């Protein structure tokens, strides 16, 4: 019984750490992804990391390594196409999204039997995260947060106005490639925790919720972190008590938080005040 408790305890600690790391990274990057309107790109990269993980399972190497390599390749491909075919980005992203998903399905079909391991990367399985994977996630999280902190001002410039950033001599190519590489790393971090399908929710929902209460990137990042941590931890606890998928509950809570944020948005509330004022003025003049 004691041994069982020890194992249960270590699973929970690993799950808790993995959830914390995923929430921290996805939400911070998510603010840039949402503001730069890159969420489809995030989804495409998430699916390419799934393809990489399944390919790695086939080749019997570390799935996170496979996910890392393929997601980086796809993120660079998208970044390159994005620059060359700026006007047709929507179509190009659709094609890359389709290609990464097709590759994932192809590799999945090549597995000899129904693969439980592969399934973990599709829908996530936070309770199966191992100590080795935690070490990888810690390294990737540290790298991601360090890059975001150091290049924060440059990222802010290219997200706000890339044209001027380039025209005034900022190294926009370097910044764009680094930002997309960070998105790729984040999809790898969240692959085992929420799975490739639900990664996009963690990238988009906390950042979109934070937008409703922020006027600066800095405040949006802090709020997005709080929203993501709340969703992640609540999802984890709820999944243990209800014996359901943690990633699904986390995703539902994150989206529900967005709807609440939309309703109670301080930005929209101001608009309502103005509408009310106009109505009062109109009534007075009538």
């Amino acid at each position: 019984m004691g041994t069982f408790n020890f194992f249960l305890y270590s699973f929970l600690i690993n799950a808790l750490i993995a959830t914390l790391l995923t929430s921290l990274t996805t939400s911070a990057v998510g603010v840039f992804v949402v503001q730069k309107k890159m969420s489809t790109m995030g989804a495409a990269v998430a699916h390419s990391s799934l393809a990489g993980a399944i390919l790695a399972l086939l080749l019997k190497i570390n799935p996170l390594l496979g996910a890392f390599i393929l997601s980086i390749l796809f993120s660079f491909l998208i970044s390159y196409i994005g620059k060359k075919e700026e006007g047709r980005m929507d179509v190009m992203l659709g094609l890359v999204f389709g290609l990464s998903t097709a590759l994932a399905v192809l590799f999945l079909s090549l597995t000899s039997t129904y693969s439980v391991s592969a399934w973990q990367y599709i829908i996530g399985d936070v309770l199966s995260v191992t100590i080795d994977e935690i070490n990888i996630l810690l390294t990737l999280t540290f790298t991601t947060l360090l890059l975001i902190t150091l290049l924060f001002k440059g990222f802010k410039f290219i997200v706000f106005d890339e044209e001027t950033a380039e025209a005034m001599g900022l190294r926009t190519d370097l910044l764009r490639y680094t930002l997309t590489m960070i998105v790729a790393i984040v999809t790898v971090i969240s692959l085992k925790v929420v799975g490739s399908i639900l990664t996009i929710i963690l990238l988009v929902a906390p950042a979109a919720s934070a937008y409703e209460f922020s006027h600066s990137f800095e405040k949006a990042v802090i709020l997005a972190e709080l929203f993501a941590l709340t969703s992640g931890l609540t999802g984890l606890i709820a999944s243990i008590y209800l014996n359901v998928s943690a990633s699904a509950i986390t995703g539902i809570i994150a989206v529900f938080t967005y709807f609440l944020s939309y309703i109670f948005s301080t930005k929209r509330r101001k608009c309502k005040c103005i509408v009310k004022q106009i109505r009062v003025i109109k009534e007075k003049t009538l």
Partner: protein
Amino acid sequence: MNIVKVENVYVAYGPFIALEDVTWSIKKPLFLSVIGPNGAGKTTLLRVLLGLIKPFVGKVEVLGLDPSKKALKLRRRIGYVPQRERIDPAALVLVKDVVLMGRLPKKKPIAFFTKEDVEKAREALKLVDMDNFWDKPFSHLSGGQQQRVLIARAIASQPEILLLDEPLAGVDIASEGRILQALKNLVSEGVTVVIVTHNLNPSLKLSDEVILLNRKVVAAGPPQKVLNEETLTKTFMREMKILRLEKEKVIVEG
């Protein structure tokens, strides 16, 4: 040394010729207005000067550098103000964030703002009469105020040349006057100001030189020499008239 020298430049987008045999130069700091209808190649000309587009024929030299070869080095000496429509008006930035962006290009990729950066940014905001808006969200400003902040960002970079793409589009008359006066003051400090516009009247009074452009340079020189009904009609491809209103020229469609 010429500040800008453009010789026999041709630019094409696929089969469409955007600039044809364009030649002109700037020898000393001045206020230059590039005027022409939509699709005349005005923005293309700015992009050529910045090295963002390479002409397929012709020679370009800006501040003694070839923009297509020394792009980064050159761009860090140029301030640029884009068309405001290209910027998300609800972006998550404060006014100070936007103006401080102008200080970034001259720094290394991993940058921290110094006291001097903040001072220069505040000075630039003051020049466009927006210093009271330092901590305000960019999204709370009117179109004209946003335009002035974008100009302050370019000024904060301490450029030798300032290029502005339609800076007066969607700006009210009061803001228009403030923007133009701030730009004119920069010229007296040794900055060359080039504004691109399809709206002739506002900038004419302050322009030292004018280029009438419609893919080709129709006319170039001081406004009083260059602007007449013939050149304007040729540029805009419709009849244009010049009226006199209390000694000032006002250009209207004929």
